[in-house]
């Protein structure tokens, strides 16, 4: 009899035993999924800095985020927002996995030298960087603080999660712009398949709603300029889409070899069954128009999962609400799944685009949707102008059979990454 803990290729199966999210849609997985399933948009005017003169004056922000209960007031002062968000999301995931107690202390009888952390980010602690550059220019070089480097470095969130929870396996940051969260989860799964570690805390975190970053994204014409109606701005696949809405937040999953999870009696939420990643090698920011790299990424993830396209219950698209992405991705998705493919959603209509956290948050949302069979609608989508063979979820959530999900992320740099997630209890 086949070993239930091994994949079709004989390597360890990778299961998910904890999930956490802090997003514009809520400061937990439950809140986030509820908001997204309602199709509510979370964009609003920026209030934390003066937007006078800016081409874009709104974003999808994590409102009223208080890191103190988890991070502590002293530590919060020396940790950039990007890491505060990541630490709080990791806490939720680790508590669910039974590896952290309610009081934040270590829990579970595991070998912490075999726990890794892989948490990606697009740009790391850019809030701190901008603040300190301004300090240097306005107050002088001697006022630059000693914490700038440990606060801004891209690997800070991974290192801080390892530090807080005493995980001594590798702690890495994967930086592939808007694909960072998906790549992090995929690379983390590969570490477990390779037998290097038993558990990986994986995901992405981003907090880049800063004056300079917003000005730069606006200069690229990447952002929606719908300043007079922020909540209608993120509208993936819609004819009136005019760019993405900058978001912030973090998504974290606890991955574990199936054998390790079974041995300690952990509750399995699902499985990272498939992962693939490609690079367009076409242009530093524009997607390859035929979506060749995206197609290869999706097909690769399906092959890795040993599933046929018709076994996928829904797709959580990258769906940024930019004219170029949504056109290329819709064509690529139809090429992979054919004209009668599964329902497709993009939850960025609700959350905005969380950049390096997007793929991780969307993996969490996709796993929940696959588990409940309730697929969130694309918020603000009223008049699709993409390939009409794409079965977009519009208006209301869609009920489907419990089945695997495919989640895509694509990033500046030409990065494409896809995950196939199987909900617990599903079998082919």
């Amino acid at each position: 009899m086949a070993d239930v803990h091994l994949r079709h290729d004989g390597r360890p199966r990778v299961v998910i035993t904890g999930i956490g999210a802090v997003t514009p849609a809520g400061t937990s997985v439950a809140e986030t999924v509820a908001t997204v399933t309602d199709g509510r948009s979370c964009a609003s005017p920026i209030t934390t800095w003066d937007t006078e003169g800016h081409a874009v004056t709104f974003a999808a922000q994590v409102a009223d985020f208080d890191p103190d209960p988890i991070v502590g007031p002293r530590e919060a002062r020396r940790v950039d927002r990007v890491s505060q968000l990541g630490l709080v999301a990791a806490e939720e995931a680790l508590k669910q996995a039974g590896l952290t107690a309610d009081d934040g202390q270590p829990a579970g009888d595991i070998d912490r030298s075999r726990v890794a952390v892989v948490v990606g980010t697009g740009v790391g602690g850019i809030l701190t960087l901008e603040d300190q550059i301004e300090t240097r220019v306005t107050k002088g070089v001697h006022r630059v603080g000693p914490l700038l480097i440990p606060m801004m470095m891209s690997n800070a969130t991974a290192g801080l999660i390892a530090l807080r929870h005493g995980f001594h396996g590798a702690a890495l940051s994967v930086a592939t712009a808007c694909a960072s969260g998906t790549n992090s989860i995929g690379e983390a799964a590969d570490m477990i398949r390779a037998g290097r570690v038993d558990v990986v805390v994986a995901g992405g975190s981003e907090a880049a709603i800063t004056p300079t970053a917003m000005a730069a994204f606006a200069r690229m014409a990447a952002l929606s300029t719908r300043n007079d109606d922020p909540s209608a701005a993120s509208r993936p696949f819609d004819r009136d889409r005019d760019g993405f809405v900058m978001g912030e937040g973090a998504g974290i999953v606890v991955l574990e070899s199936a054998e390790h999870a079974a041995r300690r009696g952990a509750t399995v939420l699902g499985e990272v069954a498939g992962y693939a990643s490609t690079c367009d090698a076409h242009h530093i920011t524009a997607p390859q128009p035929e979506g060749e790299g995206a197609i290869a990424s999706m097909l690769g993830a399906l092959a890795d999962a040993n599933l046929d396209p018709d076994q996928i219950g829904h797709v959580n698209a990258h769906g940024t609400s930019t004219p170029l992405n949504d056109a290329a991705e819709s064509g690529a998705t139809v090429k992979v799944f054919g004209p009668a493919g599964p329902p497709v959603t993009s939850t960025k209509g609700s959350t905005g685009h969380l950049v390096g956290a997007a793929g991780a948050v969307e993996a969490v949302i996709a796993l929940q949707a696959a588990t409940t069979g309730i697929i969130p609608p694309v918020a603000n989508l009223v008049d699709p102008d993409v390939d009409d063979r794409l079965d977009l979820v519009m208006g209301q959530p869609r009920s489907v059979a419990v089945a695997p999900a495919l989640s895509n992320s694509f990033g500046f740099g030409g990065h494409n990454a896809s995950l196939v997630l199987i909900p617990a209890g599903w079998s082919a």
Partner: protein
Amino acid sequence: MNRTQIVDAVYDACVEVLKVDRSILTETTSFAEDLDADSLALVEVVMELEEAFDLRIPEDELEGVSTVGAAADIVARHVEAAA
């Protein structure tokens, strides 16, 4: 500027940077042992004081500064020199 004012300012900086209760602070309070402050935190405390008194205290002068009182001494020296 008397010493009490300077010590008060060091207390203020400790409360701001280290989020400690002001009532536990004395001149013999050790940054490392009593306040669990690392070298980066000490630099931050001193930067608060530089800002408060419009001073520039070179990093190498912080070596060996282990207590609240020692930090006040350094500030007092610079305040005096600037007067």
